[in-house]
């Protein structure tokens, strides 16, 4: 896509990107926009949106690729002016299957036939729980470093959590955590903020050990995250011989608050 076309449909493209920013890689728990997975967005006069994405390797897990494609399609379709969404994955061992699945709105099982023995509900759930855990350890570490005690954090309620921090970073961590707190159970204002994966509270004595156990989940995710970024750069960041802005430059120019809206 040329820079001129991008500029002409900039408003709608940027609305699409803001929606895409709400879609996360299930394993890395980061937005597909931040991860530079989106390679192209076009919007035509009738409100039809075409988007393309790529992954760090040809081998990236097909289930995650499918989840992201589905989530992107649904996120963009929610915009009132959108009439059609087409999603295309490039340079992947299962690109053809996934792209056909998207075009025909198939379930994962239908798209993959005998190579799958069910749909993606369980793996989606597993990775939402991991995201919840990872966000909790990030927030817990931040609050402990800011001087909160394990005893205090073990008993703090969801309603009181926001007032535990007044830094911008702390507020972002709180918001990100609360966005996933409901994954493990009831999340009203009176419920404890820090709970385990079954939604049960954590005792003050066990609080540090609890966070440490969660850190192993975070270590895993970072392993893939760091590798994925490196692989993505190695795969696609071949030196370019022109300076024309690409879609990625444009995406990066979208203000952070718009990109992170969810």
């Amino acid at each position, binding site marked *: 896509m040329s820079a001129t076309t991008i500029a002409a449909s900039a408003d709608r493209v940027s609305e699409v990107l803001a929606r895409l920013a709400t879609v996360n890689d299930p*394993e890395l728990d980061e937005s597909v926009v931040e991860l530079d997975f989106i390679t192209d967005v076009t919007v035509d006069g009738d409100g039809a949106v075409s988007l393309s994405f790529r992954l*760090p*390797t*040809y*081998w*990236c*897990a*097909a*289930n995650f690729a499918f989840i992201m494609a589905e989530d992107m399609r649904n996120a963009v379709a929610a915009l009132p002016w959108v009439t059609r969404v087409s999603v295309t994955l490039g340079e992947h*061992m299962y690109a053809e299957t996934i792209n056909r699945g998207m075009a025909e709105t198939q379930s*994962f*099982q239908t798209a*993959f036939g005998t*190579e*799958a*023995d*069910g*749909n*993606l509900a*369980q*793996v989606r759930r*597993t990775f939402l729980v991991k995201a919840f855990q990872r966000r909790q350890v990030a927030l817990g570490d931040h609050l402990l470093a800011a001087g909160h005690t394990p005893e205090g954090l073990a008993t703090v309620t969801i309603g009181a959590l926001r007032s535990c921090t007044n830094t911008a970073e702390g507020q972002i961590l709180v918001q990100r955590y609360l966005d996933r707190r409901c994954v493990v159970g009831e999340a009203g204002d009176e419920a404890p903020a820090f709970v385990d994966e079954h939604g049960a509270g954590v005792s003050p004595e066990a609080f540090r050990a609890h966070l*440490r*156990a969660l*850190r*192993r*989940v975070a*270590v*895993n*995710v*970072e*392993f*893939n995250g*760091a*590798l994925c*970024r*490196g*692989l993505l*750069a*190695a*795969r696609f960041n071949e030196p370019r011989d022109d300076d024309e802005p690409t879609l990625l430059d444009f995406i990066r120019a979208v203000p952070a608050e718009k990109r992170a809206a969810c």
Partner: protein
Amino acid sequence: MYKTKDGEEIFIIDGHVHLWDATPANQRNKHGEEFINCFYGYHTALSPKEELWTRAKFEKYGAETMYEDLFVKGYDDMAIFQPTYLKDFYKNGFNTLEQNASLGVRYPDRFIINGAFDPRDGEAGIAQLEEDVEKYKLKGVKLYTAEWKGDSKGYKLSDDHAKRFLEHAEKLGIKNIHVHKGPTILPLNRDAFDVADIDDAATSFPNLNFIVEHCGLPRLDDFCWIAVQEPNVYGGLAVALPFIHSRPGYFAHIISELLFWLGEDRLLFGSDYGIWTPKWLVDQFMAFELPEDVRKETGVNLTLQAKKKILGLNAAKLYNIDIEAMKARHSAKQSVAAE
């Protein structure tokens, strides 16, 4: 041999090396091309800038370069060849037992040659294994459970046919089962990095050692849990160790968890050559210290003794290597060569 500042000699056994041919001429299809692309991605993502290779060298570095990188420029005293066949991707295979042995048999004091089997090969696979054990006196095998074969996109160690092979391997005198846990295991809807089948195999075969390459990363939490319960499960540090350069703080978390759950007796150094070279990995590992906060949280320390075990002593135990005898043989050879 690595020498510390105080002159102490540390014997290095590199637990994970390959001699591969990934040139376009040997690639069978797109998958072969993308497989080496992915490895090259690992190489460029985690190597220090001054250690980067060209793509052409990376596709095929050859036996002489390998010997030089491991034993002359690098500190390796011995290295363990781990084959990766990938015959569905490469015409003559990617890194077969025969390719590795072509260099390995020339330097029997330097290389331990490991074999491989694929339970999906049935009787022919059993016969081949017997022949390989006979010919190369194999003490270990490398299994790649995610390898494609025809319509199959992988298998599990808990499958009946895999158990039959493990049983047979044990009878033939094989002790060490190196398992590469990689993605793309069917069914595709499940978590592609599942390490649970190790648990089953390690329980069923208490006299075999299971060395999980790459420590089950990126499922370290599951791997640690399994390893705690199964005393015959080990962690190979290949791929985890290179993070020491670009993400030392992160590496500290990985190694401290491994030290806490598995302990210093069950971890093995591996460069994964030619993805990375042992020289810089060993230099950085020897210089590495766990940060105070990590030590405090986990209560573990990466002592000199722990480093010595990880870099060589643990592998020597698994492969029954008499380090002092081997050192004497190496220095005898060197003095002959110098004359």
